[in-house]
């Protein structure tokens, strides 16, 4: 019976799934007209660098021939403006925006489907897990992404981070299918929109290298890395130049990436930075900005070296780390991370804290909005309430990340020491 079901899913393909997911989103958009604007205002979804409200402000200025960065509200990439000015005004004809965001979600799900179908999670060029048979197919992984409440809330809140999500997933999918340059172009788009995806370049290069590796004509990794770096730099330069042509000045660099680098906007969010930097002594501010950014970027080389054999795992773990430690994280980043986790279905039996992490994340999800309400609207709490719950939330996420890292490493280790399978281990 199970076999029948599987085959049915495979033949029906993903069309039915996509239709249902799109219908659900459009239903939520239209049945609850107040919902999009409510979710747009939530700090967990909209950060100063992704907010749809701020995008509209920038759009208004742009359409009235004013520099969109005047006024210090808009901190997003300039090329989003012509895209959105093509759409009818979102306040009068919101349906077009809804359709755009739904489509972006479906595109992401499609990329994710390809990633899961490639089987890279369980078996890469250099490493094949003994548990690789136990995996979810693309249909399930895409469904888990499309019906994840975080993804749906993000879609309805319409932050521009969904474009970054889509670009990253496509970069991975294209790297898996061997289209190196499309992958690098996609990564450049993600970098252009949010900056931090640039840190994914090393594992992405290794992923592309592994997938295009031909034992008969072995290429050098350094050569490919150089080519990829060149491709990313060239496409980024092109994007920057077109942004310059669009806005007429280089000011957008300091207003978009500068804001992320210097954290000038201290609007509360689900991350750990804002509270630190409201409390920071002014003379140490720039130093600790450097420390926080270094901390964020120091994971890339170490993880890439350690998990050289499983580049997709590196990308997944890095996305989890970014969702915790980047300057303006939101649940959009969490949903991107969680969407890739099911690709490692085979290591799920090795997870040690699945119950704890699930409860901590749920706890954070429900208490976060409540404490934010107590602080901002009811006035019966203070900033520490909300910050405490973001700490819990980050703790939950870091538990997932470290647990997944542990499981992946244990899986690797058991290949080396097959006699230790299923036994209790201890760290020395």
């Amino acid at each position, binding site marked *: 019976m199970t076999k029948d079901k599987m085959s049915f899913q495979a033949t029906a393909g993903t069309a039915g799934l996509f239709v249902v997911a799109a219908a659900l989103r459009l239903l939520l958009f239209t049945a609850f007209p107040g919902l999009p604007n409510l979710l747009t205002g939530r700090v967990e979804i909209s950060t100063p660098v992704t907010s749809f409200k701020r995008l509209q402000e920038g759009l208004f200025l742009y359409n009235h021939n004013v520099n969109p960065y005047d006024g210090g509200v808009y901190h997003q990439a300039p090329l989003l403006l012509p895209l959105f000015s093509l759409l009818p005004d979102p306040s009068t004809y919101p349906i077009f925006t809804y359709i755009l965001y739904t489509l972006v979600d479906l595109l992401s799900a499609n990329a994710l489907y390809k990633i899961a179908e490639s089987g890279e999670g369980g078996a890469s060029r250099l490493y094949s897990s003994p548990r690789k048979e136990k995996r979810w197919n693309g249909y399930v992984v895409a469904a888990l992404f499309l019906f994840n409440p975080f993804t749906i809330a993000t879609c309805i809140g319409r932050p521009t981070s969904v474009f970054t999500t889509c670009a990253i997933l496509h970069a991975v999918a294209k790297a898996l299918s061997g289209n190196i340059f499309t992958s690098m172009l996609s990564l450049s788009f993600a970098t252009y929109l949010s900056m931090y995806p640039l840190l994914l370049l090393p594992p992405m290069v290794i992923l592309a290298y592994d997938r295009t590796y031909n034992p008969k004509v072995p290429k050098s990794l350094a050569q490919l890395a150089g080519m990829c770096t060149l491709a990313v730099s060239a496409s980024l330069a092109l994007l920057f130049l077109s942004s310059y042509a669009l806005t007429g000045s280089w000011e957008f660099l300091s207003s978009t990436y500068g804001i992320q680098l210097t954290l000038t906007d201290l609007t509360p969010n689900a991350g750990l930075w804002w509270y630190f930097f409201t409390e920071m002594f002014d003379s*140490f501010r720039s130093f600790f900005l*450097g420390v926080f950014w270094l901390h964020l970027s*120091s994971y890339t080389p*170490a993880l890439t*070296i350690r998990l050289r054999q499983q580049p997709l795992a590196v990308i997944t773990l890095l996305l989890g780390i970014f969702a915790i430690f980047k300057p303006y994280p939101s649940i959009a980043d969490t949903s991107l991370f969680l969407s890739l986790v099911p690709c490692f279905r085979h290591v799920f039996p090795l997870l040690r804290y699945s119950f704890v992490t699930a409860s901590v994340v749920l706890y954070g999800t429900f208490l976060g909005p409540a404490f934010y309400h107590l602080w901002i609207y009811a006035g019966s709490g203070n900033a520490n309430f909300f910050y405490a719950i973001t700490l819990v939330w980050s703790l939950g996420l870091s538990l997932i990340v470290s647990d997944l*890292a542990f499981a992946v490493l244990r899986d690797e280790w058991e290949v080396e020491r097959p006699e*230790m399978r299923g*036994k209790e281990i201890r*760290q020395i």
Partner: protein
Amino acid sequence: MSADIKNDGDPKPSSAEATVSLPATGIAIVERKEPPPEKESDTRRRSWIVLSFWLIAVFIGLPIWWNTTTIYRANLPLTQMTDWADGKACEPVFPLRIALDVGSLPEQEAQNLLRLTQHALDDLNDFSGHHLRLQLAQAPTEATTQVRDDSNVALTIRLAPGDAAHTASSSLHPHLPILDVQYPPNSLPTANSPSSGLATYIATQLGSTFAEEQNIISYLLETSSITPEHRPKGISQEVVDTVSKRMTRSLKYSQTYHLTFSLFTNGPVPSSWDIEAAIDEYMKPVLDMLKTIHDFTIDTQVQLYASPGVQSHVLGKEDLSSFINAAEWPLSPSIGGAPTVNFIVYIGNQTIGVPSETDAAETSQSWMIPQWGSVYLLAPPPAEAAHVSSETLKQPILTFTSHLLTLLGTPQSGSVPLRLSTLARIRSADLLLRASSSLGSLARLTLALPSISIPSNVANGVVKTIHHLELACASLGGAKSLEHARIAEHEAERAFFEKSMVGQLYFPDEHKIAVYLPLLGPIGVPLVMGLLNEIKAWKTRRSQKLKAA
């Protein structure tokens, strides 16, 4: 987390333990099984990971740390600054030039009179900070043109033979800085006489004219940061008391003052007033004369149904301070740079119960509020007239004008032009001293806190301050002095209250440990431990290799 991953990667020690039962004793002995030796590739990989963290920390982290936490200390001319504060750099001396216009007297006699009067002045004046220098008016023609040409002359004495046979008399010209002295024709000194009644008389008159200025300036010196040995001789305590009372009443010096005229009525009428005409007519002339010292901006407002802070009909002395209804009356505090001086005309049926006896300028209808402004109570117009004419406002505006002069710190004796030129001199001395003391404070602060950063604009401000102080000191008593002193004071204040320095004022070095330890400890410990482990492993490998060799 990084440490986690590294260690997780190591071949795990087996926690599986072999239990061997000894049949004889029945005691289970736990024997640990050794993990298999680590693979060469794993060791190398771990070294690479530790190296990657250290490379980032050393090649990116250290430069960031160096760049963001080095304290920039611009060079300040500290000795010069303390010299100014101690009064070593500038002798606070006001040379005042007095022109003697002798009219038709022959040259010889005029010189003689000049010499004797100067002598008498020097005998009379024991305060070194204030020199009166007599000179003959250059062109003995029209004194008025003379005054305008040479602004450095503080006062002109116009001598004229009078009718009185025995006594000399003098009077100050009301609109020009001229002292008219009429002398009996026979009192002119002869060529060889050692003293002269007329000379002594003139000297006494001059002394009394400038007595108030002298007192104020010596008071300023007394209260400044200048060390006693560089300070001219002190003044008596009672003079200090009176002067300090007057000085605390006046507003802090500012280039611009904002004058707000408010009409408050307790009923629906009157609702309009001819304030513009009244100001133009009664106050403008004084404001024009003050133009060389201050600028003024003016606004007016009318508020109906305004109830004062005190409801009683007859206001006692203690009521006067609470009369202003600060909560309800729209009296703006100083917004922007210029301090506000408030003038309030209140129309109601209240009167003051205790007429002031101390101050002649205060009528029973008005009183002055120190450093704030003044209030005038006006009786309601008879026929419920909705308009207050400019004639009705004459008395209030004249009162306000005299209050304004007091609030600005103008001395109270002498003619108006003399009072104003005195005001300019007092203000320049005041600003000069304040700028100097700010410089001294900044120098002390710099020495006391070696960890405070000094931005280059502070150094620029100090250099500018010293430059303008020198100019002001050189032209002390002259017209340019006030301008330079004002720039100097402004620059000194800006340098002292530099934003980035004020924040660090209360940041002791111990706080740095509190900042670094909790935040960097969790990062530093795994980094250092990883490095130590690597070094240890490398040493063992080497010794093994040596042994094998």
